[in-house]
């Protein structure tokens, strides 16, 4: 009945949806932001620990959401570790292009490994009502990177 849905719900997504990685609070986070999708009630809080050079030393999240949004947040925390703020922003832009169109023609060679890891989420582009589920964590990442230490801003999925 649901065979064709394996494109959207690939095993990687179901796995990260059930057992999200880095699903914890970082008590000593340097940047924190909240993401909220009021349409469906998805909520997450993202924590970033920055290294001396400003790169992302650790990333973690907590919250509740559907399999797509949870898996996206989980994969994101894995792929942004070690990235500079500029690289993380670039990855975020590319991921959103992937989620909305299914491809990323301008992605280039840098960040190719990371984009490959995120590829399982590309199927979401065929489900317009679900694209926001996949992008919520990434909007929250941008907000966290652009906020000041100690400030907690809200990111919207819009």
């Amino acid at each position, binding site marked *: 009945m649901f065979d064709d*849905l394996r494109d959207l719900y690939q095993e990687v997504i179901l796995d990260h949806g059930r057992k999200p990685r880095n699903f914890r609070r970082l008590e000593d986070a340097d940047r924190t932001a909240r993401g909220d999708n009021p349409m469906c009630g998805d909520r997450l809080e993202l924590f970033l620990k920055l290294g001396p050079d400003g790169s992302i030393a650790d990333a973690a999240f907590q919250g509740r959401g559907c399999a797509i949004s949870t898996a996206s947040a989980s994969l994101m925390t894995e792929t942004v570790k070690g990235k500079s703020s500029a690289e993380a922003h670039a990855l975020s832009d590319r991921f959103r292009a992937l989620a909305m169109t299914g491809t990323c023609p301008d992605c280039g060679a840098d960040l190719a490994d990371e984009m490959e890891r995120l590829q399982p989420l590309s199927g979401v582009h065929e*489900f317009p009502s*679900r694209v926001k589920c996949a992008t919520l964590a990434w909007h929250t990442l941008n907000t966290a990177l652009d906020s000041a230490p100690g400030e907690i801003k809200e990111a919207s999925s819009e």
Partner: protein
Amino acid sequence: MSFDVQRIRQDFPILSQTVRGKPLVFLDSGASAQKPRAVIDAMVRCMEERYANVHRGAYFLSEAATEAYEAARGAVARFINAADPREVIFTSNSTMAINLVAHSWGRGVMKAGQAVLISEMEHHANMVPWQMLRDAGRGIELRVARVTDAGELDMDDVAAKLADGKVGLVAITHMSNVLGTVTPAERLVAMAHAAGAKILLDGSQAAVHRRVDMQALGADFYAFTGHKLYGPTGIGVLWARLEHQERMPPFLGGGDMISMVTLDRVEWAPPPAKFEAGTPPIVEAVGLHAAIDYVAAIGMPAVEAHERGLVDHAMRRLSDIEGVALLGRAQDRGGVFAFSLDNAHSHDLATLLDRAGIAVRAGRHCAEPLHARFGVEAGTVRASFGLYTTEGEIDYLAEALTKAREFFA
């Protein structure tokens, strides 16, 4: 007329289509119902043959359109057994009907120190207007009656919140859009009046599923919408007693709602025109009239009996599925079922069901406080039935839910 669901289905052109290669199983009538051919044709005919603005042109087409618009008011009045067609105010939907009362009665008639009593199971349409009234700095309090674990209105709590006589208006749903619970409207009317309060019932769901009789019910205001009643979007109804309409200041100002205007002074038109500013939903009124004729020809008792069969069937089938938790188990309920599946988020589940051709709503169904009350902030999936829903469709939903649980296992 005997109720033949297969014949009825043929009256709804949209139902014969396939979605993603599967026959459409439309289980979202609680959000908006599909339209029978009779409604579509009536609206087309109105625009092709009988269309002009109403209440103003001294020419054939305008007079014909005015007649059709007022005939629709008469049809609505008969459908709900109103004592007088002037008790029927056309709005754009239930939301506008309730906002009209919140504005014209809440701000125009209620006094500081009075309270409005709603319940935890209200749709946002019957919650937010009252929160806005509470927050308008007019000294009006908002009280919220509790809902029991079974999803019924806590009548002891209603009584307790009416006890001090400060409640000026009770505004409660006649049927929950999430729980399916039908509230004891007659009892609520009696309790409100005994406490010196007026009562508004939100009949957005109930008017579709039950025969509602304004004279028997004895409420003060009753709101419902056309698009859930197999009619078009853009038209709703506020039934309001004439004596209340007389006391209420207008809601919106403009053309058609005045009897005289000078630069210094205006006089309001008599009810219900006083509350129908601007060009009204003319084509939509014609469509609503056709929808009411359609439903009335089948007969509300037959519609109700069909739905009771569907509700019993759904209760049996959905309760049997492992991992499915129904929200609310009210004794008196209509064809609306909200539920969650233990291993799937409501949006993932709705996406799966969509692939099987099943249209359901996922989320919190404009009733966030109710979902918080039941601890399901992540939302539920809601299946809601119409007069074209079949037991076979419910069986198919049950089969899909069983397979969805395996999918997410």
